[in-house]
């Protein structure tokens, strides 16, 4: 404890520019925070809200990179603030810039409305549909897919997504076309396309084809570059494009 206090005494203050506003618009407010050696960006946001301005709105839950709710734009890049050491992203001049995630409607300050993001998961057919059961029914037994099998590994490749929205907020295509389903929803669809127990492949490929789907992707790969879990949505989207291409060549495959 004494050591922490000593560090704080010696430390200079950092200047944090935080975007404050709501759906109508807003601008940056500046806060001076202690330049602690060991703190995350989320710690800094929490410090501002608890010590400097209790009206600051932001979102977090787990603080350890499991829930995906604390994503924001840190110095222009979407990140999990809970897993970002402040000392690694602060500029040489000791400044930080925090904005709400791009491409999503702002509710207030650093909190965005994630509804459009998750609505697109539903539109992309993100729900698992058991092969051997009718709509909504739970099958008596699931086929076992051995974890080491190629099929299972293909399905596992993108399954760890926790829906934080970092890829969505880093994607140019989402910015250009508001209907575009986005990397996370398409990654989810690709996971299910690869799941041999799933029975909704045809409908799902239809849902992810076309202008608002995988064919809009320009392979800028920002999603893959920025994913905090090192997933590869860009390759998932390429996989969907391939599957739809080969299906088109099958007899009667164009419908």
């Amino acid at each position, binding site marked *: 404890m004494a050591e922490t206090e000593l560090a704080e005494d010696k430390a200079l203050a950092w200047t944090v520019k935080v975007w404050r506003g709501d759906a109508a618009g807003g601008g940056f407010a500046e806060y001076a925070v202690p330049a602690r050696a060991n703190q995350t960006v989320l710690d800094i946001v929490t410090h501002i809200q608890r010590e400097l301005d209790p009206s600051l709105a932001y979102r977090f839950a787990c603080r350890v990179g499991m829930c995906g709710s604390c994503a924001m734009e840190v110095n222009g890049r979407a990140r999990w603030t809970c897993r970002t050491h402040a000392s690694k992203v602060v500029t040489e001049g000791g400044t930080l810039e925090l904005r709400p995630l791009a491409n999503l*409607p702002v509710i207030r300050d650093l909190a965005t*409305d994630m509804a459009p993001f998750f609505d697109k998961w539903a539109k992309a057919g993100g729900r698992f549909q058991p092969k051997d059961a009718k709509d909504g029914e739970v099958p008596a037994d699931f086929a076992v897919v051995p974890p080491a099998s190629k099929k299972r590994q293909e399905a596992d490749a993108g399954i760890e997504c926790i829906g934080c929205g970092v890829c969505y907020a880093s994607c140019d295509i989402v910015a250009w076309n508001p209907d575009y389903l986005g990397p996370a929803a398409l990654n989810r669809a690709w996971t299910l396309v690869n799941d041999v127990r799933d029975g909704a492949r045809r409908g799902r490929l239809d849902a992810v084809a076309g202008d608002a789907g995988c064919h809009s992707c320009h392979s800028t790969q920002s999603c893959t570059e*920025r994913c905090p879990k090192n997933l590869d949505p860009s390759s998932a989207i390429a996989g969907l494009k391939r599957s739809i291409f080969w299906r088109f060549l099958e007899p009667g495959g164009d419908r």
Partner: protein
Amino acid sequence: MPLDATHRLDLRARNHPAYWGFVLHRLSGIGLALFLPLHFWALGQAIQGEAALDGFLRWTDNALFKFAEWGLVVLLALHLAGGLRVMALEFLGWRARQKDLVAASAGFALLIGLLFLFHAG
């Protein structure tokens, strides 16, 4: 929801090799698209007879046009390499080493440009 409250990407979000690969591919494509009408116009000179085309070709036989031609060759090579990169990514499912691919694409384009320069004289 007014647009001004939805935050936009800036250059800091886009600054990585695969994005620059995309930018090069797109800009070279636009450059080539702008060149094509000129190209067809030049070829069209032949409709008015051999002399018209030859006259135009003589007029372009100078250092400035050679330099522009070099730029054109580099644009073509860039666009070709960028297209191959996208095909490899989408059809072969190449996941990793994108940085190397982007660098190789740019290197290939410059190499073709240099080869052109060697033959330009």
